[in-house]
């Protein structure tokens, strides 16, 4: 952006005549230099401190630009210009600069520990219950701010999660968009805001289309909405005669009163998507059942009994249809990422997203319909069973893959030679066969021995099996579901978990303070190391004090923590040595 330099008068107050000089504006600040070098009205202000700007109307007596720094009290820097061209140039410049500054996150860094948000406070309270704070901060190992610094990001993660959620459309139906009447005059006021306009566009595609068609070319936005509100008012007051009369005169107005053909189209398309074997023609009649119901009993809408004339085309927009449409729109959710400000951009973006979603749906719809038709009308007996597609395993050389056994000749592999040597003497395979066959002959001839086995051997096996069964029953750690911790007594478990958390906390600080650059960090590491040695000893105590049946699992758990601490100690020692040798 360029620098703006314009002649202007600076007025410390509106009533004062003003000091002539030059106003210089850059992207981040503006300065005023008076023509008279003796004047002390020099200004040099950063745009960051400017909250907004005001200006006098084109054609008014004074040509003013007021840069306000306090929007509530109205304090500001007032400049008077010679002509409107200069003023407007400056005004536009200030506008863009301020717009930019607003978009950028506020450059003022949030002051760290002085102000705590309630959420952060809550978070801290929660953590305090974990005792770590008391142990380390009050014990003097860590300072307050150090302790919380490592936890800060936890909180930040939470806040990010909270802001990322997209807000959907309001669930409230548009019927709530009612006119306000003041008691004195016959004036009816509708108030529209971007949110409502977005909703109207989403729920009434015909209005949306009409807006896109007419608004810049045929009529102004204001006229458009006035017409819309008029149509809405006529519909609402059930003034059907007046409505038809007006519609005949004004074709634009008629758009709003007519049945929405885009919606009808969409419904027809949706009907096509329904299971084709279903007879929708028969059910279509049911769509108007609600009309006859409302005929008889009347549905209360807006406090008026909706027993209107059904012959009238205009009143065919029924409550049920409105409700359905609204439901569909709300469920669809907010598909736009556009800021709800400018109506035109919203309308265009909405049209864009609609186009994308409906793109190529018509072309494929017919094909899909036929496809589904054939699926549903399929006669099982005449069809081949449908198979789930699978990728066949492609084996390059099946002969090689499957015929491993062919290679099973005599292979001397070191894998299975140990312990199985037949007394060093080479045993002929033929001989081996002969021996076994001879033994089988013996079995055939003599039958099996009686008793089958000696009672002592049976007892031995029995005892061995029993021992196997009982040992496997207490075999822990094989099942991922049951944790070793659960088998420990409650106190031991709690103590171990607490120590684990302490070790984790200390190590977090310990490793974060490397490399040691300041003497403060050095002192901190020494303190941390001492605290860690304390825990190390405490863990040893737990290991010794625990009952023998748990000792194994406890020592396994403690060992992990010891390993973590050992790594830290080792690092500390090696760094210590390095620094010693450097000093030497």
């Amino acid at each position: 952006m360029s620098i703006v330099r314009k002649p202007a008068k600076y007025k410390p107050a509106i009533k004062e005549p003003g000091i002539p000089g030059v106003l210089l504006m850059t992207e981040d600040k503006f300065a005023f230099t008076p023509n008279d070098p003796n004047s002390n009205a020099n200004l040099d202000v950063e745009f960051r401190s400017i909250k907004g700007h005001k200006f006098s109307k084109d054609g008014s007596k004074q040509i003013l630009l007021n840069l306000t720094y306090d929007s509530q009290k109205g304090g500001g820097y007032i400049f008077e210009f010679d002509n409107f061209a200069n003023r407007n140039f400056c005004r536009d410049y200030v506008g863009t600069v301020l717009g930019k500054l607003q978009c950028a996150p506020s450059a003022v860094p949030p002051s760290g520990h002085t102000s705590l948000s309630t959420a952060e406070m809550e978070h801290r309270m929660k953590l305090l219950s974990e005792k770590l704070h008391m142990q380390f901060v009050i014990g003097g190992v860590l300072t307050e701010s150090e302790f919380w610094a490592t936890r800060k990001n936890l909180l930040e993660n939470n806040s990010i999660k909270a802001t990322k959620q997209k807000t959907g459309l309001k669930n409230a139906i548009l019927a709530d968009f009612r006119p306000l009447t003041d008691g004195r005059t016959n004036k009816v006021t509708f108030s529209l805001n971007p949110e409502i306009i977005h909703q109207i566009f989403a729920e009434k595609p015909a209005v949306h289309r009409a807006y896109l068609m007419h608004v810049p070319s045929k009529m102004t936005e204001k006229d458009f909405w006035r017409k819309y509100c008029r149509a809405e008012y006529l519909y609402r007051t059930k003034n059907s005669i007046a409505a038809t009369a007006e519609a005949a005169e004004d074709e634009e107005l008629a758009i709003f009163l007519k049945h929405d053909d885009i919606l009808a189209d969409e419904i027809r398309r949706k009907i096509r998507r329904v299971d084709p074997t279903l007879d929708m023609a028969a059910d279509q009649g049911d769509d108007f059942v609600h009309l006859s119901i409302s005929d008889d009993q009347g549905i209360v809408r807006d406090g008026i009994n909706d027993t209107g004339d059904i012959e009238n085309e205009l009143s065919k927009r029924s409550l049920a249809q409105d409700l359905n449409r609204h439901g569909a729109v709300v469920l669809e959710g907010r598909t736009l990422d556009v800021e709800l400000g400018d109506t035109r951009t919203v309308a265009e973006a909405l049209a864009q997203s609609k186009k994308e979603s409906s793109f190529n749906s018509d072309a494929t719809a017919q094909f899909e319909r036929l496809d589904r038709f054939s699926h549903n009308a399929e006669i099982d007996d005449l069809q081949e069973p449908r198979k789930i597609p699978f990728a066949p395993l492609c084996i390059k050389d099946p002969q090689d893959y499957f015929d491993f056994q062919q290679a099973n000749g005599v292979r001397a592999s070191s894998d299975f030679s140990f312990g199985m040597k037949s007394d060093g003497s080479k045993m002929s395979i033929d001989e081996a066969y002969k021996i076994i066959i001879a033994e089988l002959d013996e079995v055939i001839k003599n039958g099996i021995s009686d008793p089958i086995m000696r009672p002592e051997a049976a007892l031995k096996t029995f005892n061995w099996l029993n021992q196997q069964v009982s040992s496997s029953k207490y075999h822990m750690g094989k099942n991922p579901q049951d944790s070793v911790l659960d088998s420990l007594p409650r106190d031991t478990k709690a103590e171990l978990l607490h120590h684990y958390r302490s070790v984790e906390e200390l190590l977090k600080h310990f490793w974060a303070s490397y490399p040691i650059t300041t003497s403060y960090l050095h002192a901190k590491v020494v303190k941390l190391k001492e605290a860690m040695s304390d825990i190390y000893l405490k863990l040893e105590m737990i290991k010794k004090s625990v009952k023998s049946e748990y000792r194994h699992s406890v020592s396994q758990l403690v060992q992990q923590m010891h390993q973590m601490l050992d790594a830290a100690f080792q690092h500390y020692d090696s760094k210590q040595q390095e620094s010693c040798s450097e000093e030497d």
Partner: protein
Amino acid sequence: MDNESTLSTIYSEDVSLMVVILDINPLFWTSVNSNTNSLTFTKFMDQFLPLLNSVLLLNQLNEIVLIAHGINSCGYIYNSSMENRRGGKRGPAFFAEVSEKLKEFMEADCLHRKGAKSTSTIVPSLLSGSLSLALCYIQRVFRSRPIYPRPRILCLQGSPDGPEQYVAVMNAIFSAQRSSVLIDSCVLGLNSAFLQQASHITGGVYIKPQQLDGLFQCLSMVFATDVQSRSFLQLPKPAGVDFRASCFCHKTTISMGYICSVCLSIFCKRHKKCSTCGSDFNRPNSNSKSSPVQKSKRKLDDR
């Protein structure tokens, strides 16, 4: 796992079909023979045949199929359902019949032999073949009867694993798992990684008895129990399973190796191409040579 339609047919819960796979590797049995602590083949038969007899006696409808495998072949030895039609034998006559058939099988296996005539080490038996036979038989039972007995397989293995049978054995194990057939294993020689995995995967029991002269006690206590009763019983569980695999290229047992990312074939060395599915590992964009090696390296579970 019960996703096969055949499995939806009804088991008769208390009737079992026990397929016994017996390793009759003569080299193993003669080597045990010379060891003082262990049993001869005769003694083994003394303890083994009563197990078959007692399983048949536990329930009139129980069935037993005996499959034997040696060094060169494997085959069906005895099928109680076929014998029953001719008036099943029990007791000594039954023992004699089974032994006779085993002898015939041994003689046939001896004739099938090829290769060297003597060896100082024990040649692995054809476990994969007899496992496949057992599963085929069980599948036939599944398909031919509306109500079939609950099948299980008992492997009595002596000789060590043949790493070259790894693929075949693992395929058999997984098909057993798929058709929910338990594989029990009783190892008489060295611990077998194949059978440990088989029992672990299919939910069977793996035991390596300490006292071989009390084998019958062990067999009848653990392996005679039918599948339904096992849910009420505490059976011994192994402390750990040897999950080591054999590589596809050299058929050696490895604990760390390379795995094809397409077909999961295992290799002990890095190859340019997968020998099983032909996938090309040498991608042109792999400039850094160390990273793909590191990535494809995967530690096989070795508990």
